[in-house]
C-alpha cells in the first residue's frame, strides 16, 4: 500500500528496484500474519518433509489381520493405529503423512510451472501485441473453454498415471489463467514512461520484458499461484480418486478416499473422514494465504 512507504527517498529507490517494494510490503504486513493459514501449511510441510521419521508404520504395507481398526478414541480403538487402519490394514495416519508429500509436491510444482509458463506467455503476448498477441490469446481462450476436470481426465488417460504426468497436465491446463491476467497488466505497464524511456535508451525488447515488465507483474503471479495451488491440489485429489492420477497403492489423499468408499458403506468412516479433512485444511490454508497476499501485495487485485 502506498501509505505504508514512509519517506520520499525510499519512494525513489522503490521505483528503481520494484523488488524492494515487494519485500517492504511483506515486512509491513508481517504484523498481522495469517496465523491459522501458516500453522496448517507449516504442519503439512513438516509432515511432507519428515514423513519417514514421523510415520509410525509403512504407508504401503498392510496387515490383513488388522483391517478396519477404529481410531484411538472410538470404542475398541487402540493408541497404536491412532487414526485407525483401512481395508488392507494399512495405517491411516502414516498414509496421511506420506500423502502430504504427494499433495504438496504436485500442487506446488504444478502451480510454479504453470505460473512460470503463463507469466512468460502473458508478458510476451501483452508486450509484443499485434499478431503474436492475437494468436496467443485465441489459444488461451480456447483452452480456457475446456472444462478443467474432463480435459485433465482426457489427458491423464492419454499419458497414463504418474505424479510427473499429473504435474504436466495440471500445469498445461492452468497456465492460461496466469497468461490472461498478466497480459492485461502488461498492456497498461508498457504505456508507462519508464518503459518508453527504456525504448528510447535503446534497450532490447527482451531486456525490457525481463528487467522492466517482469518485476512489476511478479506480485500478481505470486497471488495467483497461492490461489491456484488450492485448485491444483483438489484437481490432483479428484484425478487420483477417479483412478487416473497417482498410481494405486501409493498414499495419495485422493486414492485414500477412493479406497475408503466401500468401507464407509459398512460404517468405517475414519478412512474417508481424515484424508478429506486434510485436503480441505490445506486448500483452506492456501486460500487464506492467497487472500492475505492479495491484500498485502496487490491492492488492485482485491476484486479478483
Amino acid at each position: 500500500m502506498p501509505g505504508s512507504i514512509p519517506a520520499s527517498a525510499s519512494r525513489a529507490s522503490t521505483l528503481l528496484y520494484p523488488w524492494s517494494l515487494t519485500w517492504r510490503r511483506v515486512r509491513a504486513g508481517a504484523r498481522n500474519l495469517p496465523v491459522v493459514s501458516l500453522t496448517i501449511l507449516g504442519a503439512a510441510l513438516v509432515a511432507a518433509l519428515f514423513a519417514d521419521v514421523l510415520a509410525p508404520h509403512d504407508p504401503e504395507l498392510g496387515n490383513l489381520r488388522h483391517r478396519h481398526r477404529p481410531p484411538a478414541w472410538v470404542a475398541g480403538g487402540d493408541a497404536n493405529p491412532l487414526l485407525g487402519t483401512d481395508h488392507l490394514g494399512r495405517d491411516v495416519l502414516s498414509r496421511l503423512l506420506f500423502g502430504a508429500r504427494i499433495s504438496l509436491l504436485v500442487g506446488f510444482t504444478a502451480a510454479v510451472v504453470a505460473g512460470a509458463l503463463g507469466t512468460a506467455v502473458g508478458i510476451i503476448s501483452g508486450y509484443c501485441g499485434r499478431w503474436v498477441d492475437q494468436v496467443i490469446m485465441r489459444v488461451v481462450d480456447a483452452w480456457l473453454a475446456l472444462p478443467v476436470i474432463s480435459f485433465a481426465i482426457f489427458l491423464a488417460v492419454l499419458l497414463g498415471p504418474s505424479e510427473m504426468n499429473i504435474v504436466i497436465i495440471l500445469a498445461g491446463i492452468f497456465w492460461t489463467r496466469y497468461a490472461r491476467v498478466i497480459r492485461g497488466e502488461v498492456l497498461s505497464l508498457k504505456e508507462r514512461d519508464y518503459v518508453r524511456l527504456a525504448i528510447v535508451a535503446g534497450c532490447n525488447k527482451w531486456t525490457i520484458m525481463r528487467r522492466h515488465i517482469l518485476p512489476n507483474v511478479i506480485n500478481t503471479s505470486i497471488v495467483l499461484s497461492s490461489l491456484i495451488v488450492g485448485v491444483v491440489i483438489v484437481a490432483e485429489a479428484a484425478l487420483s480418486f477417479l483412478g487416473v492420477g497417482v498410481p494405486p497403492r501409493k498414499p495419495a489423499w485422493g486414492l485414500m478416499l477412493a479406497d475408503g468408499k466401500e468401507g464407509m458403506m459398512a460404517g468405517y468412516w475414519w478412512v474417508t473422514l481424515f484424508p478429506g479433512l486434510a485436503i480441505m485444511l490445506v486448500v483452506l490454508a492456501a486460500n487464506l494465504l492467497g487472500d492475505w497476499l492479495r491484500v498485502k501485495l496487490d491492492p488492485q487485485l482485491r476484486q479478483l
Partner: protein
Amino acid sequence: MTRFILKRCGLALVSLFILSVTIFTLIRLTGDPATLLAAPDAKEADLDAIRVRFGLDRSWPVQYVRFVGGALQGDFGTSLYYRIPAGTLYWQRLPASLQLAAAAMTISLVVGLSVGILAAVNVGRWWDSAGKLIALLGLSMPSFWLGLLLIYFFAVYLHWLPTSGRGTAAHLVMPAIALSGYFTAAHMRLTRSSMLDVLGSEYVKLARLKGLPESWVLVKHAFKNALIPVVTLAGINLVLMINVAVVVETVFAWPGIGRLLFEGIEFRDFPVVQTVVLLGGVMVIVANLTVDVLYAWIDPRIRLKS
C-alpha cells in the same frame, strides 16, 4: 450491433477451431490411436485393419477434415464398448446431467443469494462473518468428499436417503448438494460484493433520501440491480456444472455425461471420451458468446468500446 455479433461469432469460431485442433493433435501426439482402439493383444495386421477402417492411414490434414466433417454432422465415431454412436450415447445421458445441474443450481442460488444479501445488509456483523466462513469452506471442500460425508450421514447412519443411482426425487438430493457446494460459495461471494456496490450507489442513496422504507429500497432498487452479475455468473456456472460433475456423478453412480466420461476411461472407450470433452468445450464457448452478446445488447457502452 450486427458487426459486434459477427465479430464475436468469428472469435468463437476461431476458439472452436483451436479447440478441435488441440484435441485432435493431442490424441495423435500421445500415441497411435489404433493401439487405443484395438484390444491389448492385437497383432500388427489387426492394427493395420483398424487404421484403414478408421481412416488412420491417411495424412493428418485429411483425417482432421474428416473428423470435423463428421462432428458437424453429429457423427463422433462409434463407442467401442456399447457399439452405438458416441453422439447418441451423449444425448441419452445429457438429460440426467441437466437435471442434476438444475437441482444444484437451484440450491446454490437460493442459499447463495439469501446468505449473500444478508451478509451485505449486515456487513461487518455476525451474518457477514458466518457468510464468509461458509464461503471459505465451500470453496475449499472437494465436492466428492462432501458427497462421501453426505452418504455416510444421510444414507449409512440415518438411512434417510438412497446411497446412489437415479430414480426418485430422494436420489437427487445428495448429489445436488455435493455439486452445489463450490458454486453456492461463489454465488454468495458475488452477491455480497455486488449488493455492497449497489448499496453504495447514488440512486440507492436517493431512494433512502426520499424516505422510502429500507425493505422497499432493498427489494425494489438494490436487489434487482445487484442480481445482474450473479445471473450472468449463474448462467456460465450452469454449463460448468454439467461438465465438472464427473466426480460427483461417479460418487453417486448418477448416469449423466460425467459418468459416461468415467466409463469411457475405464473401458478405454476413446471416441466417447473425446466426444464428451469436445462437446463440453463447445458448450462453454457458446455460453460465453451468449453472455457477451446479451451484455452488449443490454449495455451499448460495451459494443461501442470494442
